[in-house]
């Protein structure tokens, strides 16, 4: 579903990403770990076509992203670290707008079902987003993935700054989506969440994907040791 082949991104002399290759299949959650500046966000931006690769290929569902920027976004939902919505519109209105932009038209009841499924309390749904916490906004993002019937999720540190309960809820939502066959690529600093939620883990360092493993191969302590070994 998501595929990077020898993906390289250079800015003048600096190499942000160097020959990164990985695949995320439907139902898998691929967690990218690494220090700030390791190239996690660059990878996600390449999948969104916000930037174009210097060399290598970036594919969604077998389709090249730079060549088909609109088509590859059809079944994709992106949730950035700080999901901002329109503060003067309610959760329902925001969801209606963003889902509408990807060509989906839903009744108010259906939109409410998606928001409820994403864990947003009913009474909050028609309130203006300016009153929402970060966790609530992230839930609108998940509801958008549900509304779009997304096959691909791109998450850029979605749980940073969330309290443990909200973070846990978010992870549960991801697990539920992956059971529906969604391919998820998530950049994160949270080793614990990565081990708990992810199916695969990649460790990045200075633009290079230095380690790839499945989470059932390793326990939490060993993952931390491995991570620190690469960072030092």
């Amino acid at each position, binding site marked *: 579903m998501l595929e990077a082949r020898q993906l390289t991104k250079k800015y003048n002399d600096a190499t942000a990403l160097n020959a990164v290759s990985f695949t995320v299949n439907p139902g898998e959650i691929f967690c990218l770990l690494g220090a700030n500046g390791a190239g996690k966000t660059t990878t996600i931006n390449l999948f969104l076509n*916000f930037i174009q690769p210097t060399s290598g290929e970036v594919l969604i569902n077998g389709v090249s992203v730079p060549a088909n920027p609109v088509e590859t976004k059809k079944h994709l939902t992106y949730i950035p670290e700080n999901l901002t919505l329109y503060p003067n*519109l309610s959760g329902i209105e925001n969801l209606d707008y963003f889902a509408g932009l990807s*060509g989906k038209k839903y009744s108010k009841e259906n939109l409410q079902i998606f928001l409820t499924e994403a864990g947003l309390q009913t009474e909050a749904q028609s309130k203006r987003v300016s009153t929402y916490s970060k966790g609530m906004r992230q839930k609108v993002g998940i509801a958008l993935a549900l509304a779009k019937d997304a096959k691909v999720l791109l998450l850029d540190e979605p749980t940073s700054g969330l309290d443990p309960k909200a973070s846990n809820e978010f992870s549960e939502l991801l697990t539920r989506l992956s059971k529906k066959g969604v391919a998820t690529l998530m950049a994160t600093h949270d080793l614990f969440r990565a081990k708990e939620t992810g199916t695969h883990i990649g460790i990045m360092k200075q633009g290079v994907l230095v380690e790839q493993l499945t989470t059932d191969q390793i326990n939490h302590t060993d993952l931390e040791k491995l991570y620190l070994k690469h960072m030092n």
Partner: protein
Amino acid sequence: MILKIALKELKELFREGRFRIAAVIVFALLITSFLVSKRYYDYVNEQHEAARKNARNEWTGQGEKNPHSAAHYGTYAFKPKYPLALIDNGVDKYSGVSIFLEAHKRSDAQYMAAQDQTALSRFGDLTPDFVLVFLIPLLIILLGFNAMSRERESGTLRLLLSQGVKPITLVAGKWLGLFLPIVLLVLPVFVLAAFLLAGVSNFGQFSMAAFTILFVVYLLYYAVFTNLTLLVSALVKKSSLAFVALLSVWIISCLAMPKVTSAIAEELYPYPTQSEFETQIAADKKNGLDGHDPWNAASKKLEAETLAKYGVDNVSQLPFNWDGYLMQQGEEHDAEIYFKHYNLLKETYENQTRVYRTTAALSPFLPTRFLSMAICRTDYAAHWNFADAAERYRIMLVGKMNGDMVDNSKTGDWDYLANEKLWESVPDFEYQPPAYAAVFAANQSNFATLLVWLLVSFAALYVAVSKIKVI
């Protein structure tokens, strides 16, 4: 998709305090300035009508007198105030409303720039046009300066583009979301104005077509400002910076450029001062015929020629009143002198107009303002047209008086009296303004300039937006 974006923009706009407050203020100002102008207009028209009747009564009721004395007694031509002057008062305030018509003298110099006006007076003063050409562009800037920059700052632009929305679609939606509220604000005022103006009875040639064109001109102007606002908002990354940049655009286009243009026009083609103008006319008069001075060389020559033509020795033997004939010859000569000098003045005016037309390319404000004044018949061209008509009427009136004296009295017979039959035979001064077709033809370049502004700003917006980057 575009409509969906536009609707969401509108929804956000209406929920925001700044739009509600600004819209209410601008709407109130527009309605108030319109109603105030309407009142002033009604008042002026009442006075105008009374004065016109009064002048006519004085003319026809002046009693028995020598026709040439009647020509000296004179009458007045009143410039009609047209219904659309309510929308744009133009230079009316500076150009005067009446012209005194008498023998020997074209006396409208006091209404001319040759007096003491600066070229700035071309830009009128506070009426609905102030709100329409100055404040509404400011409102567009106030509502739209962060239309694009806010999406970028808050990160919603990334989210939007991740949905596969094309930037150009987004901007098209935002364009409608900014332009439609402005239309909604201005339209009711124009509709109200149309109803009120259609009901105006005095001088009431109200042309719905011209009024509609005026409305369209303003809409084009607002479209240009909508383009500029979105362009700057898309180019400048920070909202605060976009706001400052757009305010500068407004100051330059609406305040600075008109004054710079006036200065350039005045520098290149300065009007003569009132005294220079009068001195030149006096000089020409002195060296030419003078109807009241038979010893003047030129009139002596004319006398000799006329006596030879009729084969008589003395002017008293001529079959017509020589005094009247000589005065009419002098009158015609004076009229030619006035014609020459006013044409020189007009040439300066036309040269200046050419400068304005060229420099109109520098700011969308200029072609809009010129078109607005032209359609409302309150520009200098309208005033010139009236002044020329009044002068033609004056020449006709004086000619008729002198002619009556020539035909019906003997040379030296200053006791000859004409009565109200003659006065009434002079038709009332009925001024017909130039047809709109002529007005539009004269303003082609302004239409073209405004359209070029629209197209170029659309193109610039298109190019800037298709290159937009989120990172």
